[in-house]
């Protein structure tokens, strides 16, 4: 697995350098960019990490980059905004769009490092969640249409007899489908299956 990386995007060379150095000194992998375009050209959404983003930049600013990442790339990398002076409406917009934090320069290095560490943890958790979900989807894909129907009924707590009546078939057939569902979904109990269905949004 790739090392989590702190991506720094800031148009101010000196300040960007100081951020990189700070993160490197804390033992983190850093990759820095002078503009949103540079970052987008090099960025691979599959790389774990977080983004430390300057709000006020020429051409594409921080908020716009956030929007591109969310809406066009469907990427949920955690974002920490840095700004020269607190533009409150921009801050609200950024947080509404799901920014993790909004820090005003000059920012205490410890606070910044704390925010970055939290962001990396959050990213790792999200990625784990996403991996689990992806696996569940793959398992669900293997079910036949009939098995999916049966599963939908099972997770509402219905007994095989009731399901058989609802679907207009024999209880025995339902039992077989039910066994197949539990096996394919790798669920050890109905309770587990219910949680899986919940995650899959069934």
């Amino acid at each position, binding site marked *: 697995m790739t090392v989590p990386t702190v991506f720094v995007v800031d148009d101010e060379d000196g300040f960007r350098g100081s951020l990189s150095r700070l993160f490197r000194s804390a033992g983190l992998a850093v990759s820095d960019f002078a503009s949103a375009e540079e970052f987008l050209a090099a960025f691979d959404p599959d790389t774990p990490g977080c983004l430390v983003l300057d709000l006020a930049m*020429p051409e594409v600013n921080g908020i716009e980059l956030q929007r591109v990442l969310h809406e066009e790339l469907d990427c949920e990398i955690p974002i920490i905004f840095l700004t020269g*002076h607190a533009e409150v409406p921009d801050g609200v917009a950024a947080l509404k769009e799901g920014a993790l934090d909004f820090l005003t320069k*000059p920012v205490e290095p410890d606070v910044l490092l704390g925010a970055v560490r939290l962001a990396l943890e959050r990213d790792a958790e999200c990625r784990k969640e996403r991996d689990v979900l992806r696996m569940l989807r793959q398992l669900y894909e293997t079910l036949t249409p009939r098995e999916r129907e049966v599963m939908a009924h099972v997770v509402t707590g219905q007994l095989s007899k009731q399901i058989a009546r609802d679907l207009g078939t024999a209880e025995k057939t339902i039992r077989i489908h039910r066994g197949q569902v539990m096996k394919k979904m790798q669920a050890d109990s109905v309770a587990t299956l219910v949680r899986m269905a919940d995650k899959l949004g069934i």
Partner: protein
Amino acid sequence: MDLYPINWLTFLQGMVIAVLLTIAAMNLLLAGRRGGRSLHGHVLVAVLALAVAGTGVVELLLANARSADQYGSLLKAAHVPIGILVLVIPWVVWFLFRAGRPWLAGLANLVWSAALVFNLSQPYSRVYSEITRVERLTTIGGSEYTWVAGPGQPARWVGYAGVFLTLLFVFDSAIMLWRRGERRRSMIVVMCLGASLGIGLFHSVGVDIGAIQSPYFISLAFLIVMAGIAYELIVDAARAPVLEQRVRVQEAEVAHLSRQSMFSEMSVGIAHELSQPISGILNNAQAALSFLDRDPPELGEVREALVEIAEQDRHASDVVGGFARVLKAGERQSERLDLNEVIGEVLELARVDLERRGVEVTTDAAEAIPDVRGDRVLLSMILFNLVRNAAEAMSANKTADRRLSIGTARRDRGVEVTVSDLGPGIPAEDRERIFDPFFTTRADGSGLGLAVSRTLVEMHGGKIWCSPGPEGRGTDMYVLLPTADGRPV
């Protein structure tokens, strides 16, 4: 001239003359002291008062004339002050109130002048071709006065026509003023002037043709309106120093408040400008400490961090130094300034910010522009503010398109500074509103920068305005300031 014994009529005439001479003297004194816009008014009123006083003197002498020849030459002489009076009245109205039709005034003057020339060529004035009777009559109060009669000049009606045209001009301008909505002071003055002229005209005609038996009293008819006009002008003059004092106090207050608000605007700029290097220094110091704590310490990284710290510290010093240079003038208020020099300082001050924003600056300074008079700090702040606005307006432009130009030019009425940007421009409906307090299009704007700038520019006797740039791109901001020796623009 040998006068009859004093009676109340002579006494009254003497008093009227004295009052009119006083009014004339006061207005001449004020004209000398105040100058400027009120100069014309005071001089015209003084001329008017002198003419009416002269008329009064001749009226006094006419009432005391002893022979037909004497009366005739006095009546001729009377046309000098009356002549001036009738010639000047339309121009008083014109200069004081900007009302009336100048061509009508010209026509009245022309006809009246013809009558005056004719008057000089006649032995018994333009009124009588001969004086056949000279009598002493008694007025209501029992005063005696000289009264004459004789065949009239057929051409005397030309003179009456001239006065009548003048009267027409006055009433016409009164109607104009009424329509214009200036119904109070100017109306009263003009109407009274017309009434005096009308009464004077019809009474004199009556006396001339023998229909009214009475001494002439044109000067009396004019006394009231003269006193009215003089009162207005003198009250004005008396109030002026008080008002000037009040304005000066208010200007001082505005200057003080503006200073404060400009300082706070600039402080936001400084804070923003300094937060960058200070933040950087903090990060580098923290990083250096961490690298030192490693086992073994990574001295190469520590060294790099220290070099970077020094670099950012220098940058911070530049920022602080720039502001200090502009602020060092401190409380010094008014001095002669070369605007090109002020612009140089302002650009130096904004340099860091402009570089950071990637804005390219071109200057177009006119050579040998005259000095302006003003407060160095306030003017610098105004220009700094304009430069910052221009730079900010281009933040969404492509880097190659962020060009700001600032220039000076000599104008008739002063020195003009132009700050142009290539930003999105200002919509026509906002072009006046941008100078209103609290009007802003920026999330972090106080909306005070341009409002305060306008107040400050006007306090310097100047003007500030904006227009779309060439080909409708961007915005040109103009500041016009009077030269150090000139008048407000």
